[in-house]
């Protein structure tokens, strides 16, 4: 099992989410974060005050995958989050020791498979086929 943490552009979130769902990764946690990468600083003006915005708003997505899903997950993020410009983000992959589902007490891979994973994946694939978010 691996913990995959990725920082992506907020405006790419719908595409990343759709790609993850199509790949069968349906259990995700996301948060708004600010951070500093290699991007240029942004300037804002309020009356006489000029501000340099050093930190950029990003979205952080965290998910834990069983081994067969790790590479599809990484590929899904790469294909959906990449614009080619500086600031597209990062993907971090770390080992995970133990996972427990609180509702049932199931552990590890059994705890990782969301009960509605298949339905969510089917819907995402159908949506893509019908011209939904690619």
């Amino acid at each position: 099992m691996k913990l995959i943490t990725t920082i992506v552009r907020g405006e790419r979130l719908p595409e990343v989410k759709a790609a993850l769902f199509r790949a069968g990764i349906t259990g995700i946690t996301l948060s708004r974060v600010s951070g500093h990468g290699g991007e240029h600083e942004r300037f804002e003006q309020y009356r006489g005050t000029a501000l340099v915005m050093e930190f950029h708003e990003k979205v952080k997505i965290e998910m834990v995958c069983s081994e067969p899903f790790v590479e599809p997950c990484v590929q899904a993020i790469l294909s959906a989050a990449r614009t080619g410009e500086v600031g597209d983000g990062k993907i971090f992959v770390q080992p995970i020791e133990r996972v427990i589902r609180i509702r049932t007490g199931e552990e590890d891979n059994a705890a990782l498979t969301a009960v509605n994973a298949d339905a969510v994946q089917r819907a995402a694939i159908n949506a893509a086929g019908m011209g939904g978010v690619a």
Partner: protein
Amino acid sequence: MTQATVSSGDTAWVLISSALVLLMTVGLAFFYGGLVRPKNALNTMMMSVVALGVIGVQWMLVGYSIAFSPGNAWLGGFSWLGLHNVGLEPNPTYSSTIPLQAHAMFQGMFAIITPALISGAIVERMRFRGYIVFLVLWATLIYDPLAHWVWGSGGWLLKRGALDFAGGTVVHISAGVSALVAAWFLGPRRDYRRVPIAPHNVPLVLLGAGLLWFGWFGFNAGSALAANGLAALAFVNTNTAAAAALVTWAALDLTRTGKITAVGVATGLVVGLVGITPAAGYVTPIAALVIGILAAGVSYTAIQIRSKTKLDDALDVFSCHGLAGIAGALLTGVFATKIVNPAGGDGLLAGNAGQMGVQLLAIVATVAFAALGTLGILALIQVTIGARADVPEESAGLDISQHGEEAYFGSDLGSSVPGTGGSLGGSVVVQTFSVEPTPAGAPGV
């Protein structure tokens, strides 16, 4: 004295205008509230809102009498305390067609917003109790006498022929200068020029600016005290100057930074409204256009200079109200013409250069009186109950330290009900209610 009879049309317009000016104070709360940081949003808005109560009472009890009851050249008398002797009949000294009580209410709304304007200079660092005392003393000792000088029967500036249609000197110059003095007296915010301070909610700023513009029609056109041609002229001039100043500000923004900012156009339109206030009923619409453009130019330049100094007039009240007010008062002396208002006066361009001298006298007198008075009042408050918030109060934010509230409630995780344990040291709920633990093994858990 002709027989005075109440005109229903005039009375309706003045009463509606009074309500419009009241709305300006609420608009000001949004305008200022959006420009500060989240931890001071409520305190900043309260500085305007509380004036509705405090000055509403002060005006009814003493303010109207000091400003408008018969007295000498410097002060009104005490015959109208508590609105005693202020009846439902017109008083031809002020208007022969509206009840004197309508005049009292209309003027009361001016008395409310004027000290609230000052608050923009001292946000994020003044103790609220000290501020309330300041409101009462400033209204009583500065605003009410000033209003008497310019508008009260027998007022010395009125007798000299100073032209101030709706309060350029009484409201905007006095508030702007007092704001400058107050900002200097309290000193800069601890964070000023140390960490970036940006407006926390620009949409609120735009909402407030919109409400100010809307209410300003009551402020200026209502100052005709009648539903007549003069009111229409003031209405047209008000809108024209605001629009011209908005466009000018946007053009200046675009030239300087390459972008037109929302805070900029909101500021610009307010500055145009300030500039036209003394002139609204005395000049032509073309003159109003020029006044709007010039007022915006003056304020814009002043803000650029001010922001590079250590003077923390936080929301630029002096640049927006003091300087635009002075520009408007001087330009009234330039553009006034009896062609549009026979009861008004002629200015420089109409061949009466002497009007400039009178306008200048009114400005200098207002500046000196407001500056010295504000200094005295603040010094008194500082040595008694304290004017400046202390460091922990300012760091925590005045919403928490002065009001025990937050504009944007911080975190549900950090709060708990007293007595249930498990508090993370967050807020305290005074009203308690029982929390039933969920039974283990309950269905659906």
